[in-house]
């Protein structure tokens, strides 16, 4: 790939990363629709496919820092192309491999790796470098909204695809779509080397600096809570509603649609507000608002209306932490290693996600209800609101290094 001599414009970057993010986040969001047909066709229990999904999420988090390092060092374009190829390969793998362990490991590694190369963490570096500081948070908001839009819009499309082309055909069509859209879009993400090089700081120095800086650790803690809350609610909410007597699954479907729709507005709004107000206060408010919304939802009499109001409120707060968290990182550490640092905080998010979904099931099995996990979710929200408050958003002051 020939290096670019001119930086791409912000509009180009937002459009190209927006399309990549829409597909990256959207395609994986609909994977649940394959659970039944793929398990039936391959004579699996539900556990096999669920394990593959869990592994994908863990691998996404684990590969995140490495994809970030690659994006910061070799350029977002190369990493996005590699990610698109992995994505297409993962979808082809899922359509053809019937041996359970091969399916789990292959799809986990391929799709997890693909997501780490094409989702927000890997894209954040180039967005942060291209947008002027005054527009950076807004630009992150646009990208967050694109990710949210993908999750919202692609679910019905994927369901329709399975209905018309069959589950294997749907995988093949999506593989082609991913390759045909992501790779050309990635070509717009070529940056001149000078833009990527930035201030003189080695990779180990950047990692040591971040992990030795208290605000970064506080962001890691906050993002862990974000993952815990969202995945617990996303996965266990339908079961909770059923337990509490809301037996009409249409209510849960409508709740999912509302979360998806309001998530788009929430992500954009958070990014926009992040350019005007201190991000730490916005993050703190989001976590506190989540804790309050959950507490009110549990206290209020349960009805379809209360579920819809809760879903809309949680939708607004769903991915709104993403542009703000990445904005704080860019503000403190600069944009040179932004993708890598985003990868590290996202790993913390994914560990939280894993614990949220697992602890929900674990405690439910032992106690027969979700009361304790809901309490933990509220307490974690208050904790995250408190840890975000003291974050110092000022750029870190580095000692001048002598030129080599």
């Amino acid at each position, binding site marked *: 790939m020939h290096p670019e001599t001119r930086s791409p414009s912000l509009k180009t970057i937002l459009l190209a990363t927006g399309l990549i993010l829409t597909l990256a986040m959207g395609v994986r969001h609909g994977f*649940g*629709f394959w*659970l*039944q047909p793929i398990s039936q066709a391959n004579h699996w229990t*539900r556990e096999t496919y669920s394990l593959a999904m869990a592994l994908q999420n863990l691998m996404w988090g684990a590969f995140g820092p490495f994809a970030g390092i690659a994006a910061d060092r070799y350029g977002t374009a190369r990493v996005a192309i590699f990610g698109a190829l992995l994505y297409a390969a993962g979808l082809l793998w899922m359509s053809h491999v019937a041996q359970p362990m091969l399916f789990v490991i292959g799809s986990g590694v391929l799709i997890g790796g693909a997501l780490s190369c094409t989702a927000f963490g890997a894209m954040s570096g180039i967005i942060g470098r291209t947008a002027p500081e005054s527009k950076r948070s807004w630009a992150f908001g646009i990208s967050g909204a694109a990710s949210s839009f993908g999750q*919202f*819009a692609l*679910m*019905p*499309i994927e*369901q*329709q695809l399975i*209905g018309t082309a069959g589950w294997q055909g749907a995988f093949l069509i999506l593989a082609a779509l991913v390759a045909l859209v992501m790779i050309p879009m990635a070509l717009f993400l070529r940056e001149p080397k000078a833009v990527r090089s930035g201030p003189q700081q080695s990779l180990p120095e950047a990692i040591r600096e971040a992990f030795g800086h208290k605000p970064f650790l506080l962001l890691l803690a906050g993002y862990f809570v974000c993952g815990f809350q969202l995945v617990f609610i996303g*996965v266990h909410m*339908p*079961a909770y509603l*059923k337990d509490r007597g809301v037996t009409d*699954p*249409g209510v*849960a*479907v*409508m709740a*999912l*649609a509302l979360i*998806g*729709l309001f998530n*788009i507005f929430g992500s954009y709004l958070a990014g926009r507000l992040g350019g005007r107000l201190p991000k730490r206060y916005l993050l703190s408010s989001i976590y506190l608002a989540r804790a309050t919304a959950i507490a009110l939802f549990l206290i209020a009499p349960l009805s379809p209306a209360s579920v819809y109001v809760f879903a809309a409120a949680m939708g607004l707060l769903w991915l709104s932490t993403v542009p703000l968290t990445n904005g704080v990182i860019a503000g403190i550490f600069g944009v040179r290693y932004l993708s890598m640092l985003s990868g590290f905080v996202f790993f913390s998010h994914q560990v939280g996600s894993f614990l949220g979904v697992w602890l929900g099931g674990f405690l439910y099995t032992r106690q027969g209800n979700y009361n304790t996990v809901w309490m933990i979710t509220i307490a974690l929200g208050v904790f995250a609101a408190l840890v975000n408050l003291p974050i110092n958003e000022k750029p870190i002051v580095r000692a001048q290094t002598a030129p080599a």
Partner: protein
Amino acid sequence: MPVLLKRCLWYVALAAVLALSFAAYLRPAFMLDLANRILLCA
């Protein structure tokens, strides 16, 4: 094209896409499929 008109058209297009996507969730076939999935998880 005046900037204001262009912006309005953008908003209308965006609103139309979001409304269509939301309507897709309300299709009976989709509702049934997602509801089955939810029941399976529950």
